[in-house]
């Protein structure tokens, strides 16, 4: 557990030493700020639900860009050799990498608290709905990061890892469209796998364990697949 923490700490501080993380955070907050202003000014509702729904789409791009270097870079620069010849398990490394990135996203989401605070200053927002929406957003972002960590383990190239991460998440984002086109029973099966579907309830102020379990399963599943990929990989 100590080593998971060490890896997480290392990845988190590495983000703070590179301009990429700042650029991503700034870009994400500018765009979500834009969504926030536009939705509040046009609808006149003191709510962040619309903004969160749209920001989820931005997260589809932000998460893989954050995670793309985590494992691909280790393989690409040869540091994997140094890291994996210390007495550390693949699982510890993978979990640490995930929590490092999750730490940064958590910081980003804490900064998003500014939106309900602004609403509170000028109006009377429903704090329950806002907080449950942010909780859902946080869990969804975690699932996205785990998927990004997974694609990062498949290649030596950051670029390939990032692009395939975005592709994988876009697919999960739109998977319920297939349900709409094909009707039942496909619709209900597919909607179980839709990352947006599970987020909707949080954004309406409903915290359902079923949805928490869904995102947690996604995280654990992708991280497990990542360790399998790394263990079976022929490092060269």
């Amino acid at each position, binding site marked *: 557990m*100590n*080593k998971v923490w*060490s*890896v997480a700490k*290392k990845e988190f*501080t*590495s983000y703070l*030493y*590179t301009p990429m993380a700042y650029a991503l955070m700034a870009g994400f907050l500018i765009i979500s700020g834009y969504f926030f202003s536009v939705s509040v000014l046009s609808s006149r509702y003191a709510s962040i639900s619309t903004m969160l729904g749209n920001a989820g789409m931005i997260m589809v791009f932000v998460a893989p860009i954050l995670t793309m270097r985590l494992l691909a870079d280790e393989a690409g*620069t*040869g*540091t994997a*050799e*140094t*890291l*994996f*010849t*210390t*007495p*550390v*398990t693949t699982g510890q490394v993978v979990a640490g990498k995930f929590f490092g990135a999750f730490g940064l996203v958590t910081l980003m989401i804490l900064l998003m608290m500014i939106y309900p605070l602004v609403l509170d200053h000028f109006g009377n927002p429903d704090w329950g709905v806002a907080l449950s929406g942010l909780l859902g957003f946080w869990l969804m972002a975690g699932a996205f990061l785990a998927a990004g960590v997974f694609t990062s383990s498949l290649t030596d190239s950051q670029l390939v890892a990032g692009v395939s991460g975005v592709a994988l998440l876009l697919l999960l984002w739109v998977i319920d469209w297939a349900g709409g086109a094909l009707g039942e029973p496909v619709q209900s099966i597919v909607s179980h796998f839709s990352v947006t579907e599970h987020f909707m309830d949080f954004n309406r102020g409903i915290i359902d364990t079923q949805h928490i379990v869904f995102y947690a399963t996604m995280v654990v599943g992708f991280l497990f697949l990542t360790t399998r990929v790394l263990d079976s990989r*022929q*490092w*060269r």
Partner: protein
Amino acid sequence: MQTIEVRDVTKKYGDQVAVDHLTFNVSKGEILGFLGPNGAGKTTTMRIITGFLPPTSGTVHVDGIDVLEEPLEVKERVGYLPQDAPVYPEMTVKHYLHFMAEMKGLNAGQIAQNVDRAVQQLELQPVYNRLCGNCSLGYRHRIGLAATLLGDPPILILDEPTSGLDPHQRIEIRELIRGLAGERTVILSSHVLPEVQQTCERVVIINDGRLVAEDTPSGLAAQLTGYTELKLSVIGAEDVISEVLSAIPGVQEVVPESREDGTATFAVHMSPQRDIRADVFNKMVENDSPIVEMTPQGASLEDIFIQLTTEDPAQEPTEEEDSDE
């Protein structure tokens, strides 16, 4: 007591055989030089010993522990410096060393102590707070070596620890490695041959993944050439002197090398059992031919290496063998 036992190890990448039924041992406290041309399988072998790569077949035991069965136990005992000493460019030297110490499972007190000592040993104070990516190659090698030494592993495996360094830095690293020996077992790969000759007690030479020789550097020289060479320059007529020299007991062959301004130079091959230098001196005095130079030439590791790793020993080594991977 064998610390590292490599038994019949084979590694294939697809159809390509990188290591072919390799077997050798390293005893406790020994410094073993691991030699071979580029692409011979040195790095692959080291990766297998450190548990980074699984072998296709065969076993590796470190302190009696099977690397495949208990990789973590082995990794706790081995400090490994990969080729080119990869470090995280976006970490400071301080963070990097602390991180590696944590990965080795040291507790907070040990970390501070170990990092301090490694920084002193490798003189990293000037770059301690700099980003690894902004350090020169020489420093990066030293950072890598410092990280390898953290936690005092009893076994060190160093893959070309001096490649890419300037001569001054090479000497420093070499001194350091020699200083570490005694208490520790060291495997050191290199294609800088004089370095191995100076640092290592025993040499394993591999070529195309196979073991081609295993002995002390001087043992290899004697075993391989079967004679010792004497370089001799004498003032006088070449043919006369050549004849006189050939008559001396113990001389196997006299090879004329050059002649200028009445001085003839020869390579005299003599049997290793008999020192003929006094006889040569006396004969030359009798013959009234002053000796201007007489130097015994031991076969260098370089000659042995080329002879063992060239497919056809009669053929001169080609340029490709020196080129990088």
